[in-house]
């Protein structure tokens, strides 16, 4: 069962470097909030938030692939773990966020004030 394992400390430290740099970029952007990103919306979310989510998924990729070492697993295991999660999360997000946005409209346009 035990495949020949070579030490990959080099890669571990490299991934740590990547994760750290990305976190620093996130915090830096979060503090300065550049106007051209923060004030422009795309699909009801500003560009800065899109960048944050993209960087988060980038970090998640490195954690799962390098630290959890799913890159070394068989592709059946990799797909069985990763694909359902991605599919179900996208599905859930689509439904809940659409619904949340709809309810926002209902509250906003209703004749009854709910918060005053």
């Amino acid at each position, binding site marked *: 069962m*035990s495949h020949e394992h070579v030490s990959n400390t080099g890669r571990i430290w490299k991934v740590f470097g990547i994760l750290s740099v990305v976190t620093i970029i996130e915090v830096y952007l*979060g503090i300065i909030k550049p106007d051209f990103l923060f004030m422009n919306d795309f699909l009801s979310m500003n560009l800065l938030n899109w960048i944050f989510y993209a960087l988060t998924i980038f970090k*998640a990729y490195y954690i799962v692939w390098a630290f*959890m070492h799913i890159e070394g697993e068989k592709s*059946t*295991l990799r797909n069985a773990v990763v694909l359902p*999660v991605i599919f179900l999360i996208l599905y859930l997000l689509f439904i809940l966020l659409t619904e949340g946005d709809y309810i*926002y409209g209902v509250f906003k346009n209703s004749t009854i004030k709910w*918060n005053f």
Partner: protein
Amino acid sequence: MEATVTTANSEEKTWGGGNEPMGASYGKLMMWFFIVSDALTFSGFLAAYGFSRFKFIETWPLADEVFTHFPFMHGVSAPMYYVALMTFILIFSSVTMVLAVDAGHQMKKDKVALYMFLTIIGGLIFVGSQAWEWKNFIKGEYGAVETKGGSLLQFVDKEGHRVALADFAATLPEEREQLTRSKAKWFMSEPTLPSYSVAEVQAGFKSHPDLLIRTEVVTKEKQKTVLSREESELRLSQASLVVEGANLTRNEYGSKLFADFFFFITGFHGFHVFSGVIINIIIFFNVLVGTYEKRKSYEMVEKVGLYWHFVDLVWVFVFTVFYLV
């Protein structure tokens, strides 16, 4: 046999039992599937947070105004620095964990023990930091007032800087004692009284003409709305409650659901970190007494490693959702 093409040589073994179609042992496979289900649980929570946020998109609190504390720096607004530090600590403890797994593959017991130990320390620092974050969140900083209609009013000066209730509230001779069961005959319980009554806040506001009220509504400039002095007085006359800090019912930061989600999601994550630390401690002692040395495999370290990285993975998302976005 033309129709069923199987890999050469494996035919004998395929139905003989004991093979691992996914190339991973039973325990590791089950850890992966546990992680899948736990990841979906967390996604459910975070998606529910997104749902509520989209529902109240116009009045949701701005995160960088809520989390502004840094240890030993009182009165300095330092948004995100502390939580960035916490993120580093957790990522670093993930690194030491993966180094422990790596050392395990090479059967280096001492190195595994050392890295496991560092991982445990990192986890403990993280849980402690989260407790401190909660303390600040629960205690609050400025205080606010809730109107009869359930919306929250905060106080700012002419430049738009937040003003704490303690800085302007008047002291009226109407002090009411906090009732406890030992002091009242027909009395069950009451929530902790705020430091100031609504009347004291209103009187203090009247005597400070440079104060204004800030509502929860986010403007086009993505800032909270600041009312004019006349509007402020009108809104404040509808005040019904003084809100200080946060609990599960209301909080001084804005939308009531914000604190609920914060407590629930970071609490659930903190619980994962805590149980991760406990499991790591158990495995650490197993390493020390040589259990895995005898077993000639450090796979158990790899399995708890998977769990530990998963906790880190969840934090990466919680960090984005609560602190950045």
